[in-house]
Structure formats: C-alpha cells, structure tokens
C-alpha cells in the first residue's frame, strides 16, 4: 500500500506513466464524444414537451456531473497535500481547479441557454443554480490565488488546499438542492436507485457523453499535471535528460 502511495508521489513516475497513457485516453475521449454527441444530436428522438431544445442535456449533464466529481478529486488532493506535503497532490490540485472552473462555467452557460427556451429565462436565483455559481467561484478563487501567490508557491498551495477543503461543504448542497428546497430546476433524471426517468433511446447517448466527459477529464488532468511537473521541475536531472534526448 505504501509503495503504491510513494509511486504516485513521484513526479518522474507520473510523468512517464501519463505520457504513455495520454494518446490512448485522448483517442477514447474523442471516440466517445463522437458517438455520444452524434447519437444524441442527430439520431435520438426529440422530447415530447421540450422538443429539440432538450438535446442540450448531452453537454449540460456531462459537464455538470464531472465538475462535481472533479471536486472530490481536488479535495482529496488538497487533504493529501496538507497532511503529507506531497508535491504531486499540489500539482493535481492546481490542475483540477482550472479544469473544474472550465467545466462549471460550461454547466452554467449551457444551463442558461437551455433555460431560455424551456423555463422562459436565462437565469434565476434558485438553490441549484446559485450553488453551482458558488462552485464556480471556489474553483476560480483557487485558480486566481495560485496566480496571485505565484512568487510564494509554498503558501499558495497551502491556502488553496484549505480553500478547497472548506468548499467541500458546497458539494452535498448542490446535489440535494433540488430536493431540499422548492426550486425551478427539475430533480435528477439519473438516480443511483431505480431506473432513469428517461427513455432508453435518449438515455444511451447521454451515458456515452458522460463517459466521454470523464475520459476527457482524465486526459486533461494528465496533460495539465505533466505541464506542472515540467514547469516546476525542469531543472531536475531526469527532465534535463529527457530534454537532451529530444534532439
């Protein structure tokens, strides 16, 4: 168990491993997005009430789901960094914040675009949407703190890790917001218990899109953490050797 833990703490090992995995995961991501979006946008039937505007679900739900799942990863990285001062965990925290901010932004924007034709408004301050906005602000806060404290990286990573941990409170609120309060946002379509309240002809492409989004998250994380390793450790012997070997 501990040897595994130490392996994951080694930037050199991660750099090589991620470099080998990246092309495969990237190709799988493209494939899944292609299947999911092609199927969902062109083949799946429209919804009997919302018509074709419901097709925004094929990007809205995947990015929203992964922006929340990504927060768990980021919070775990933050805890590991605070306790064991693991460099790789700090790099993962910084990368996850930027990717998470992008995904949350997309969830908010696609939600607004979807809201206009269905609800009749771009934006409403209901519990689900507001808590998603808070999630975006936390992600952005971490991204900006890293930028602001770039000359004091030790402090930056510690402050950001604490902010990430505090922000964890928001995640169950987002999940349960549509059940706890009266909100404009509809309850979850996909549940852990019971069948999804969606016809299979519409649900299968959605599954492909969600898998694609998770794979994309993996691709981006590997790419960005590799970038962080490059930026911070470029003067180490093993990276200098790699640079020398590239000629």
């Amino acid at each position: 168990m501990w040897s595994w833990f130490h392996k994951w703490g080694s930037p050199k090992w991660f750099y090589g491993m991620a470099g080998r995995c990246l092309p495969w995961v990237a190709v799988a991501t493209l494939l899944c997005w292609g299947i999911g979006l092609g199927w969902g946008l062109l083949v799946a039937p429209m919804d009997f009430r919302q018509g074709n505007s419901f097709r925004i679900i094929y990007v809205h739900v995947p990015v929203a789901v992964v922006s929340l799942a990504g927060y768990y990863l980021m919070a775990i990285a933050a805890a590991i960094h605070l306790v064991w001062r693991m460099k790789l965990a700090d790099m993962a925290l910084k990368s996850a914040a930027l990717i998470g901010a992008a995904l949350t932004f997309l969830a908010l924007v696609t939600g607004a675009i979807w809201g206009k034709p269905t609800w009749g408004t771009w934006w409403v301050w209901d519990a689900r949407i507001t808590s998603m906005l808070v999630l975006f602000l936390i992600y952005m806060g971490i991204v900006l703190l890293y930028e602001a404290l770039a000359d004091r990286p030790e402090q930056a990573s510690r402050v950001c890790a604490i902010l990430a941990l505090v922000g964890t409170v928001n995640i169950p609120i987002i999940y349960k917001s549509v059940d706890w309060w009266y909100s404009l946002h509809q309850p979850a379509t996909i549940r852990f218990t019971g069948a999804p309240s969606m016809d299979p002809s519409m649900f299968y492409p959605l599954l492909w899109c969600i898998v694609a989004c998770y794979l994309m998250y993996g691709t981006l994380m590997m790419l960005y953490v590799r970038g962080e390793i490059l930026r911070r450790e470029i003067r180490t012997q093993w990276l200098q050797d790699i640079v020398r070997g590239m000629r």
Partner: protein
Amino acid sequence: MHPLRKQRLWVVVFIVAFSSLAVALVMMALRENINLFYPPEKVLAGEAPVGKMIRIGGMVREGSVIREAGSLRVRFDVTDFKGTVPVVYEGILPDLFGEGQGVVTQGKLVDGVFEASEVLAKHDENYMPPELIDAMGPDHPGPKKKAP
C-alpha cells in the same frame, strides 16, 4: 503514522467539520429564504407576505386558462392539489406553459389574486419521445401540436 502528519490530518478534519457546521447553521437560519417559491398551500395558510414581491409555484389547473380576447392578458389557477391561487398575467408566456404543467410565477398577492409580472415554466425530470407518448393513447398528456 508520523506524529506531525497525524496532527496535520486532524487539522484537515477540523477544517472540514468546522466549515460544514458553519454552513449548516447558516442554512438553518435561511431555510425559508432559499426556497425559490411558495406553494399555493402556504400562500392560503397566510405564510406568504401580502403586497410584497414573491414567487409562487405549482401546476396550472386543467381547464383554468382563460385568455382575454385582443390582449396578452391571461388568467389561470396555480394549484398544488392542496390549495389553489388565481393568477392574472399580461405578457408573453414561455413555450412550455400549458394546462397541467408546472409553473413558477413572480408577482404580488393583492386581495387573494396573484398579479404576476413574470411567468416561468417548470418542467419535470421525465424525457420521452413524442412517438412513445402517441402510442400510449389519448389519456396521456401528449405533445402539444404547435404550428411551425
């Protein structure tokens, strides 16, 4: 585990627990205000402020929509099957507005009538192709035939 790391682990646990507690307390205090709307039942029970901007939400009662000829004025009843509030509204309704559909509307309660300034459609989490709804028979709330 190294005692220093153990201490840091406790700090982490403390941060999460403390911030959860703080947020939980704030939400307990704000519990009512986080609700986007009042259901008709609460409006009739007098829990909603009168003459102030509020939102109410529920179903548009079947057969209650009356459009005034020659204007955009429309009357309908919002119900949660425990209470019903009559609503008047002048303006453009969202596409998904219809009898038996969910709705959230903003406005003021004046003499038991809700004068709405904004009407939003609330849809549910069910997604179905129109062909399947047709196959289920006429009893099912089918797709509204809309002019192209």
